[in-house]
């Protein structure tokens, strides 16, 4: 606790601190010129591996603000064995994620049972028009390349 001392001493101490800061290096990162490297776990953008998706709708259902739109249809596959029964396979027609609604909670990534959704730390996808925040299947697929390996763990 500060005790009563020489009047003005507190002001002088504060001024010494600001003067010291004036001559120390700034902590600014010049954003467009140099970029901060986000941590591997950073929740930047969700990437979609469309091949792994089985249109199970779990993510769309669990999403707290319902920002995932999925459409699919059943396709008949040729039987795996000669003379076997043709198999039906769900095919993804549409996978849209509205980032204008998304609140980056990550529940969809977590509930996905087939590893089709991933977090990527990329963050540069702002748009001038709010409707452009709706990322379709291809756009979400592009993010997949930016998904980093999980970080090493503390032993």
């Amino acid at each position: 606790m500060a005790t009563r001392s020489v009047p003005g001493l507190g002001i002088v101490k504060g001024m010494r601190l600001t003067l010291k800061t004036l001559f120390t290096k700034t902590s600014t990162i010049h954003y467009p010129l140099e970029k901060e490297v986000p941590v591997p776990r950073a929740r930047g953008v969700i990437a979609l591996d469309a091949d792994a998706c089985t249109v199970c709708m779990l993510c769309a259902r669990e999403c707290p603000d319902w920002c995932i739109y999925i459409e699919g249809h059943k396709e008949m596959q040729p039987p795996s064995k000669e003379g076997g029964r043709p198999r039906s396979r769900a095919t993804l027609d549409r996978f849209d994620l509205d980032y204008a609604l998304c609140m980056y909670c990550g529940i969809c990534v977590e509930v996905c049972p087939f590893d089709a959704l991933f977090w990527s730390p990329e963050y540069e996808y702002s748009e001038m028009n709010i409707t452009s925040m709706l990322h379709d299947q291809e756009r979400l697929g592009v993010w997949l390349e930016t998904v980093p390996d999980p970080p090493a763990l503390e032993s």
Partner: protein
Amino acid sequence: MTTADRQTLSMHHSEVQVSVELQTPDMTLNLGPQHPSTHGVLRLVARVDGEVIKELEPVVGYMHRGYEKLAEVRTYPQITALVNRIDWVSGFANEIPFMVATERLMDIEVPERAQYIRLILTEMARISNHLVFLSSLPLELGAATPLMHALRERERVLDLIEGVTGGRFHPNFNRIGGVKPAAAAGATQKKVVQDLPQGFVEQTKSAMEYVREVCADMVNLVLGNEIFMQRTKGVGVIPADKALAFGVSGPNLRASGVPFDLRKTDDYLPYSNFDFDVVTGSNGDCFDRYAVRLEEVVQASRIVDQAVSEIPAGDLQAKVPRIIKVPKGEIYVRAENPKGEMGYYIVSEGGRGPYRLKIRTASFSNLSVLSWLLKGQLVPDLIAILGSLDFVLGDVDR
């Protein structure tokens, strides 16, 4: 002669009223909902005579987002993502009481390592919350530099939180039964267990050093400053009995000299394993509220230091069913959040979501003292008092 005396006098002698002062009409000053220092959208309707506040009525609700109602139609995992948005300055700490309440209803024992991780991140949330406070009160009093100094160091703490949870403000890291686990069935290499990343202990320790350093800077820059003392000492005094009567909690209550800290009395997290002090003030004025929080940052950094060195190995999650259904029952769990006591009252009917969720937030109860406290204060003091109560409108309105 006090105002009350004069009023009774004029009541009895209404015809021979003698005015000793020049009667001037009072002015209604409407501070907010858009005002630089109401921390969002608080509205204060004040009747002022010059700069003296005669009467003041806080109007809240401009940021009501209906979390309690929303919780009734969401599942427990979804509510986790919602509750850390209640008080966005200390997002992680909001999740804890809700998680503990649900786990107690379901009778789940949380592994110790998960509890330690929860505790570390909660204290980090406390540090980041208090650093925001330590910088915003001087800003309200006209000094802009402490803001940048404190937020610079807060960034280190937020980076650590982000490194573990993936989110700076809204971690959404707690899961019923522990912390964020391996993903659902069928997890492959990319969704491994979300344990602490490598280097966390070391970075945390150095970040805590920086935090203590900036606290020392704050003593020089703010606490020891004569002008700051002039503006805050003896301003906005909440006596201990009044504080208790109004339901003030957290650092605001401790500044009034009541050594009440849920970290010491309740057992929602293993705080009893650590050595830390409950910081109390003596006068309950703005200066004490600032000093208490400044010291609490140091204490929180001590807890984090101890916790990261003693963290036990083990599981991150207890065994929980895939689909979480909470048995029928009611429970209230409260926790010492950075802003004060935060509690969740859950009424479960056995479904996937609560039947009713009541959220007790610290800011709302702390604000209830305003109209009593601000009567007779000056407008500049109003700003100092508002700043010293440390509330967030999201926390007030939910």
